[in-house]
């Protein structure tokens, strides 16, 4: 029941590689990133402040593209919060393809526990936005069965941690069935939901499932971090023929950003350049991107020049973007919210060492969360997660004090 992949009719934004891409999208992406770097970590303003050094850096970083207008405000666009961006992406895909449906708890009448599917029930009907009973294993399996027989379901886990109950179906069926059936069935499913450490949500609601699922063959995993890439990755994941897990973060849903009016899709396998630099490559994803950008302000003040890359694609890693950066800076620091043991950072570290050993001037640093069930109490919870001052210290240790 393989579905023919729809040929993309909109430009797919490729950041760094020589691929057809409108320079406008690229500049929007980078300028958004620069604004993110320039502002506080907790929210983004829509001001277009940027330093001249960054503009020059932008012109060199995106080497294959002509330097174009660096702000999106001149192109129009509209401002929205990240959960609205996810909603917009999902809505556009559901309008485009009637086989796309949403399956999950409270996605219909309630509008989604984080309001990502608000209004969908009235717009698309209750068969397309299916409110399920609390049975993750079975409704994920049901989504897999329906994907095998022609639909394109989007499964929402109310919290990513609940998908541990669906691990059986995700590992055994979602990832494997295309292979064990000899390629006869495709499973174009998207599994999405909020994860990560929130504000004192307790241990079970603060889990990072990317480490558990990364070993499952046949799955792709992406993590969104801005409204722009949230919408783009949502659309790309729905159009992809592979099963994709899209990780959102509970604390990022209220990020505000201006995104283009015209349709765009992000590349699932590519990383995103947040801040070009020369001295050290900092690889991060999801919420830690903002801790890193906050730390980078301090670092720049102290004279460092970090290059920040949001890896976005947790499985597979974009070894080209990472490699180009390592060749330039020769030092790597990974900052992640995953647990220390067996996390994304651990895999990334070994992948970089394997491919770019000769380029490295020193050991790869990796800052991860503590191997501790996330405590409820605020100060303790802060201690389990990487904080900006720790990032500053780590960079100073890797690059030498200035």
């Amino acid at each position, binding site marked *: 029941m393989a579905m023919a992949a729809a040929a993309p009719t909109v430009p797919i934004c490729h950041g760094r590689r020589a691929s057809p891409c409108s320079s406008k999208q690229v500049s929007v992406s980078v300028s958004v990133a620069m604004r993110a770097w320039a502002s506080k970590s907790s929210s983004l303003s829509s001001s277009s402040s940027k330093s001249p050094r960054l503009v020059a850096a932008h012109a060199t970083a995106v080497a294959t593209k002509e330097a174009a207008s660096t702000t999106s405000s001149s192109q129009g666009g509209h401002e929205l919060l990240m959960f609205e961006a996810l909603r917009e992406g999902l809505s556009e895909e559901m309008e485009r393809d009637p086989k796309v449906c949403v399956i999950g708890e409270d996605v219909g009448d309630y509008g989604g526990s984080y309001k990502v599917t608000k209004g969908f029930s009235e717009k698309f009907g209750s068969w397309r936005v299916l409110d399920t*009973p609390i049975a993750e*294993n079975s409704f994920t*399996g*049901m989504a897999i*069965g329906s994907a095998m027989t022609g639909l394109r379901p989007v499964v929402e886990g109310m919290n990513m941690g609940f998908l541990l109950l669906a691990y*059986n179906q995700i590992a055994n069926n979602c990832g494997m069935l295309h292979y064990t*059936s*000899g390629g006869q069935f495709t*499973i174009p499913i998207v599994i999405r939901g909020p994860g990560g450490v929130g504000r004192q949500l307790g241990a079970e609601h603060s889990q990072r499932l990317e480490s558990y699922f990364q070993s499952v063959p046949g799955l*792709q995993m992406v993590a969104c971090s801005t409204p722009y890439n949230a919408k783009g990755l949502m659309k790309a994941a729905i159009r992809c023929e592979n099963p994709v897990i899209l990780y959102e973060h509970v604390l990022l849903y209220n990020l505000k950003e201006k995104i283009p009016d015209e349709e765009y899709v992000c590349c699932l396998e590519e990383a995103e350049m947040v801040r070009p630099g020369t001295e050290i490559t900092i690889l991060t994803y999801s919420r830690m991107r903002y801790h890193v950008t906050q730390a980078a302000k301090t670092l720049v003040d102290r004279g460092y020049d970090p290059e920040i890359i949001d890896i976005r694609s947790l499985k597979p890693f974009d070894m080209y973007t990472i490699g180009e950066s390592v060749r330039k800076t020769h030092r790597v620091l990974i900052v992640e919210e995953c647990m220390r043991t067996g996390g994304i950072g651990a895999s990334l570290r070994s992948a970089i060492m394997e491919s770019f050993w000769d380029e490295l001037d020193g050991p790869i640093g990796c800052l991860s969360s503590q191997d501790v069930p996330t405590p409820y109490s605020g100060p303790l919870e802060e201690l389990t997660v990487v904080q900006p001052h720790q990032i500053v210290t780590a960079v100073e240790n890797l690059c030498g004090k200035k």
Partner: protein
Amino acid sequence: MQKPPPTHPPLPSRLLRPLPFLPFLLLRLGRLILARPPPVLLNVVSSCCCVACSSPPWLPSPLFVSRCRSLTLDGPFLAPTLVARVVRKLSFRCQSSKLLLGAGCVAGKKAPLSSGGGNVRGAVSASKAVTEKPNSGSKSDKADLLVTKDEGLELYEDMVLGRSFEDMCAQMYYRGKMFGFVHLYNGQEAVSTGFIKLLKQTDFVTSTYRDHVHALSKGVPARQVMAELFGKSTGCCRGQGGSMHMFSAEHGLLGGFAFIGEGIPVAVGAAFTSKYKREVLKEEGDMPVSIAFFGDGTANNGQFFECLNMAQLWKLPVIFVVENNLWAIGMSHYRSTSDPEIWKKGPAFGMASAHVDGMDVLKVREVAKEAVERARRGDGPTLIECETYRFRGHSLADPDELRAPAEKAHYAARDPIVALKKYLLDNEIATEAELKSIEKKIDEVVEDAVEFADASPLPGRSQLLENVFADPKGFGIGPDGRYRCEDPGFTAGTAQV
């Protein structure tokens, strides 16, 4: 001279005679008043014993009326001949066909294949349906036959194919042609044939690790199944699935699952697609139906209950078929299940359910027909418990020491193929020669399958990475900037991914 006193029976016993029917009559009256059919479960304990089989009542004999809201064939009123069967629940291993469907369901009219039939006495049944004629081997009228000649031969051929194929699998396994876990279906052919031969190619089936015969019944060529077992690239899954993962997109076989319970949500998902295509995409035509086959052990698994709930909630066109062969490897069903009667779990969700003699392909077929028609009409799912038995161990590695020889002998005497053969011959539906020719043909088919599998090539190294992703861009971007699947070594299976 005084007239002799009237000779009617003593008053008390005459008054007591309608007593067993009273709850039922009150119910009918209540429904007439309310004019809508609430789901009702009545238990009336009766003291009569089962005479249909020789074993003593396993349970105190209850009468059950299970009426399901979803069965709307006759509206709020139940036609007399189609009234909810009040069937005596006697011994758990009763040989008669026990159908507990609500309105609109057809019970098995005859049970000609069961030996030792007797009448189910004592229970009220407004219809004549659940009665067994003593099987004296006499010919029935043509009009009473359950199958036409073509159908009978088709069923026979399918069951013989299943049996011969499984026997050949055992031989091949012991000769070292296949490895791993191989679970054979000997003895359970009636369930597979009875259900799957009613399906169309567009209908779906999910199975368990005991899936060879489901694949064959669904139409997957024996050659492809055997080649898959041998691990050859010409197998139905290119050698990548194996014994426990038979898939066929062409024939609607959605697998083949090694973990129990895993296939049930997949079948529910396929049923969801059927319903979605009708409700949202407004597709016309017959709604494809899904059947999930699984065992008694699975009926204790969470996914089973979750799926019963969802399927009934959304009235999905799925049929849950429990192949109750009493044993989950070495765990007896009675030791692992608080209430061993699996069919009873359907009404707890408001679902129509049935218990059928799974060693009798014609009974299975009758129940299956009703269930498939219900599903296709949009009346929702059915749970059917088939009492069956596997003649071999759980797998070819199972020493099968725990099952009592008497139990095995009891079921060996109820071999479904032998029973169907007897029925076809006794009722002059087919001749001995025709059946022999079918057996010969099947032998040739199975031999040919082995030869084909032997001669087929093993998968090459290039096949290793091919089906991991539907879109091989999922392997990511390599250090050189190209997608890894663009690496020339990818098709040779040597690319670093």
